[in-house]
């Protein structure tokens, strides 16, 4: 190291300059930030990058109202609850493609479609940083209500707003593959669907046993919660958005799919103009093909016998049908060797299927729509959940 002893002054100047530079950069940034934030709040109703609008005026009362009146009356209307929570900027959702129903509901009651990013636990709801939190009936809602390990023990002190009742339901868990795969392997698809639906039927008839099977197959969700989940998932599989019973498992309900597509077109905001145009022009025929399910009973020999399916989320009773079909040997009976790949990572099921890494996937219909708009060619071959499992949960006084 060569350095001169007169370095002190140079160094002080150096440090000062670096600090000043950084500070001025920062000052420039923060100076511009409020303007940008308000601009985003205005634009937010059209923006999928929903930035929660912080409203200084409304946070004040909620902070001071720690007393009994903080939550909602058991008899309060959905409209009043949604308006209040949205006004305070305290509606939560996980984002990442799970938010469209919430945005549709917010729009229904003429609120900005902004929300807070909710972590994948209910701590935010528990500590009141989120007043109206997203929850799946079969998962988070159970954790909030129940008192088993991991539960928040609220019992009857919480109520939920159901998306189906509000007419903003979008269909969730389906089975899909690429169009090319379906065309090249029709018998495999048919056989896979037949065996999977057999699994779902068995699981719905024996939810407790199904929960045990999932638990045995590597799920780490506690067995109590797993049993709760199985009983709730059964309802989603066997009831449609209108509340009517469904007997044909995996049926492609075109009316509900159309509602999903319509809502998706309204609330999936794509920055890419090519993708946005594609979304606008999309019809049901671009996203689903019912022929494989209908003809599934008369399947010939599978073209590809070793197949895999990636789940939408971590292994849990949400996917009990596949685990049951695997465990009970339904897949084997159909001449298939099936591998179940858990999801929940950042390589989404749509990407995994599209890239050919797995053959089938379970995703939400809205995610499939977004992926196809983005340029994938995926097709839904069965609709497992016949109604929306998403609710907004709130505490009652």
């Amino acid at each position, binding site marked *: 190291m060569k350095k001169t002893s007169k370095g002190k002054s140079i160094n002080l100047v150096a440090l000062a300059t670096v600090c000043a530079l950084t500070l001025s950069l920062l000052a420039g940034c923060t100076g511009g930030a409020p303007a940008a934030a308000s601009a985003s709040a205005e634009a937010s109703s059209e923006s999928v990058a929903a930035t929660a609008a912080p409203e200084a005026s409304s946070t004040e009362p909620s902070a001071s109202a720690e007393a009994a009146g903080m939550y909602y009356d058991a008899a309060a209307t959905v409209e009043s609850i949604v308006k209040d929570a949205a006004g305070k900027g305290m509606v939560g959702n996980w984002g990442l493609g799970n938010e469209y129903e919430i945005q549709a509901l917010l729009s229904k009651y003429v609120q900005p479609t902004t929300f807070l990013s909710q972590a994948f636990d209910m*701590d935010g709801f528990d*500590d009141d940083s989120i007043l109206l939190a997203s929850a799946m009936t079969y998962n988070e809602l159970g954790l909030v209500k129940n008192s088993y*390990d*991991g539960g928040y023990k609220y019992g009857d002190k919480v109520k939920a707003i159901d998306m189906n009742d509000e007419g903003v339901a979008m269909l969730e868990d389906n089975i899909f593959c690429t169009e090319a795969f379906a065309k090249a392997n029709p018998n495999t698809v048919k056989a896979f669907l037949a065996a999977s639906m057999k699994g779902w039927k068995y699981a719905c008839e024996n939810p407790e046993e199904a929960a045990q099977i999932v638990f045995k197959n590597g799920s*780490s969700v506690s067995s109590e919660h797993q049993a709760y989940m199985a009983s709730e998932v059964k309802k989603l599989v066997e009831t449609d958005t209108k509340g009517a019973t469904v007997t044909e498992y995996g049926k492609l309900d075109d009316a509900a799919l159309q509602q999903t597509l319509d809502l998706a077109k309204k609330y999936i905001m794509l920055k890419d103009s090519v993708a946005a145009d594609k979304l606008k022009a999309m019809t049901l025929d671009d996203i689903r093909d019912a022929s494989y399910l209908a003809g599934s009973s008369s399947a010939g020999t599978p073209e590809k016998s070793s197949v895999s399916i990636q789940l939408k989320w*971590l292994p849990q009773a949400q996917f009990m049908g596949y685990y049951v079909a695997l465990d009970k040997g339904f897949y084997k009976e159909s001449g298939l060797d099936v591998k179940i*790949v858990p999801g*929940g990572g950042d390589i989404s099921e749509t990407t995994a299927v599209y890239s050919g*890494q797995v053959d089938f996937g379970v995703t939400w219909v809205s995610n499939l729509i977004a992926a196809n708009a983005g340029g994938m060619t995926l097709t839904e071959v069965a609709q497992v959940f016949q109604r929306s499992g998403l609710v907004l949960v709130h505490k009652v006084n």
Partner: protein
Amino acid sequence: MEPNRKQDSNRLATFVWVLALILIWELGATLVAQTKRTPENVLPHLYQIVESVFSTKLVNGSQTAFQIVLANAGITLARAGIGFMLGAAIGFLLALLMNLMKTVEKIAFPYLMIIQMIPILGMAPIVLAVTKDIDKSRVIIAAILTFYPVATNTLAGFKAVPGEKLELMHVIAASKFEIYRKLLIPSCIPYFFTGLKVSAPMAITASILVDTLQGGGGLGTMLSQSLKHAMTIYVFWQIVFLSAIVGILSYHLMSVIEKLAAPHRWARKVKLDEPAQLDEPA
């Protein structure tokens, strides 16, 4: 200066610091325990984490929390190991290539930096499209994330060879191959190990990171499942501590390997470096 006594007092100081850290943690945990309904999600007491390690309660069909962590640590560390070796090899070869050809160095150097700046979320789908296999993709990404320190340090090693030594080699009309074999490569080894020491803990954090890309096995997958409350949150806390410990161990492992690989070099290095490491030169 007696190195042994110094080392002992160093150990003592580290120990005291660790104690202080534990104290701060516990104070925080006590505070959290009083204000939160689910304190274990925010900051559990350390004894609770230790307790969870020894708990015999099964959290899935067949394993306790700690068994899950251990089983998945095996998967992650195996991937980290392969990724690390791949990264080290790529790093060394790149450095060699850059030293052989100035043009390559000029072209590659800025881009090596830029590659490091691409978030793996962007990189992953491309690698996946190429390999069609998530586990291969994971190893490759881990390698991409770890080769940089090895490459830069090794290159620095090549450049640190004194000019007069090189001149001497030229004077005795040594071939390029001989210069590399007898002078450049041996003298860059300490630098190479320096790079390895930096990238070994990185390989482990990188491997945990790429686990989260998709389900399956691995510490990262369990970490994210635990965060998503699909299993007890203590799995998360155990992984936090395990990853820190393994990271530190991996660094020391590289030191040990260095010692084994080049004992005489190590001995010389210790003599040179030891005083400087502790205080001003004697």
